[in-house]
């Protein structure tokens, strides 16, 4: 093998599918058949996973922190709700895309405010935008339904064929399909030269500009794309629960998302997915044990994660799976090896 094809081979190392990844998605799919009574919580996890993946795109790859990602989630949620409620677009998939685009427009418009400045300004600006939207939604209650939210949304069948059932089965597989498609797109994007340039910007913006990367334009592009993803997550929320209320913009929603990524790790796309599963399961577990104080335990877990270090935790958790895969496939497990901090 000559040096050039060797380079090509290694350059594609990360973008090749690994056994661990295939296994991950097969397990997710299998869950849809294994737990037919748990569709609602599982759909909830898928939505959260998509939402977290959206934040990972800007935080894990481009290094943009945000405390107001719920702004895009909320716009997507209300857009999908209004489209269905007023019968503007009845077909859910088309409405989903339109709702995503609405969030995307907002993302593009606000990206110019966000990309300037340092982390602290970004936190404040993103937080401010989300609060602003929440207040607007409350003020224009004739459109949004105010504190009652949008009520009486009736979803039409997907592609006019598959109706949403009361057990949430259709909603689950619909959400899973959307998540998987958007994951494939994100995976493609982060392994492209564009995606690599984002990581370069996160690592060293000064040098990134010094090799000819138009830093601001790249940041605007990824922020806009992430807004689209978050909007889709919000629209899925409305479509699968048939409600949209003011709490789609809530600060807790943005803050939870940070926690999900702290748990799952950033910069390898699976962080949001794994983090969403663990976060919701912890939430379920703790609220069963101590309904009143579950937040205390979540907080404790987070402190432990930060103190022990996620890399070490991952090594412990993945010790057995890695061993098995090593035995079976003769190579290192790729289930989760984050490369950078949150």
């Amino acid at each position: 093998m000559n040096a050039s094809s060797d380079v090509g081979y290694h350059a594609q190392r990360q973008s090749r599918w690994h056994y661990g990844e295939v296994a991950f998605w097969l397990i997710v799919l299998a869950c849809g058949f294994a737990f037919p009574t748990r569709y609602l919580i599982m759909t909830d996890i898928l939505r959260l996973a998509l939402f977290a993946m959206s934040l990972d795109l800007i935080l894990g790859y481009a290094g943009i922190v945000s405390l107001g990602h719920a702004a895009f989630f909320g716009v997507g949620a209300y857009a999908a709700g209004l489209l269905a409620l007023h019968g503007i677009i009845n077909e859910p998939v088309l409405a989903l895309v339109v709702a995503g685009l609405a969030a995307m427009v907002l993302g593009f418009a606000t990206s110019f405010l966000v990309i300037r400045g340092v982390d602290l300004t970004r936190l404040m600006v993103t937080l401010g935008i989300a609060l602003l939207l929440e207040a607007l939604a409350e003020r224009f209650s004739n459109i949004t339904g105010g504190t009652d939210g949008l009520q009486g949304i009736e979803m039409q069948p997907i592609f006019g064929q598959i109706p949403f059932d009361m057990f949430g089965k259709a909603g689950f597989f619909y959400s899973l399909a959307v998540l998987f498609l958007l994951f494939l797109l994100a995976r493609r994007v982060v392994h492209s030269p564009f995606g690599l340039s984002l990581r370069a910007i996160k690592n060293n913006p000064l040098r990134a500009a010094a090799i000819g990367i138009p830093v601001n334009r790249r940041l605007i592009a990824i922020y806009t794309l992430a807004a689209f993803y978050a909007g889709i997550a919000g629209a899925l929320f409305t479509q699968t629960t048939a409600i949209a209320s003011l709490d789609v913009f809530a600060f807790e929603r943005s803050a939870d998302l940070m926690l999900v990524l702290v748990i799952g790790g950033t910069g390898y796309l699976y962080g949001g997915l794994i983090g969403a599963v663990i976060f919701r399961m912890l939430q379920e577990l703790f609220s069963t044990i101590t309904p009143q104080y579950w937040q205390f335990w979540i907080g404790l877990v987070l402190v432990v994660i930060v103190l022990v270090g996620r890399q070490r935790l991952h090594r412990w958790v993945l010790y057995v799976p890695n061993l098995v895969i090593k035995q079976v496939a003769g190579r290192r497990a790729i289930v989760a090896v984050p490369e950078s901090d949150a």
Partner: protein
Amino acid sequence: MTIALETQNLEKTFGGLRVTRDLSLKIEQGARHALIGPNGAGKTTVINQLTGVLKPNSGRILLEGQDITDLPVHKRVLRGLSRTFQINQLYPDLTPLETIGLAVSERLGHGGDWWRRMGTRNDVNDEIADLLNRFHLLDVMNEQTVTLPYGKQRLLEIAVAIAGKPRVLLLDEPAAGVPESERHDILAVVGALPREVTVLLIEHDMDLVFSFADRISVLVSGALLTEGPPGQVARDPQVKAVYLGEEAVNV
């Protein structure tokens, strides 16, 4: 003779401090030009203005006759002006393969490509392989940059600038901080730069300056003290007084 890079009456102040004073430099095409001066003479400030990191208060900067004074950093790079940094400015998490691959992709205009995966373009791969080979980085191409020894990082720093195929290259103390055992590699690489690349070298190391440069400008307190071929500069009593005072230079 063609002028590759030129400054006209460049002025830069930080508050009340004039760090660049009426500086007019002409660097000929293909030259090996050195900019020297004692600590605090404002050499790096000049580089930062040339590359667009800092904006001069007044004066103009011309690259191959075209005014680039108001261009942002990345546009100057695409016009053929690259630099290395005095203190390594690399991507700690990325590998040398990714770092150079990105620089090559950006130059060829593939940097905004969000669909095609890295490593699937043969022209890019060829160039990466060639650069990694020339800069002795093939064996560490998959290591994270932060884990590389300093000498290798220094080589990568220069390789990244070269990957932009600059017509004018600004080298800001290329050998700074490199241990003696690894200096040879750096000097060899710098010496082997193709002749059509114009090089402006900023350096403290007088051995390197006098062995490399065919023209030297001396900067003192932000202003040009003198300029000429190495022999003339070394004999200049003014230069000896303000800059080389304490050490004798043999050319």
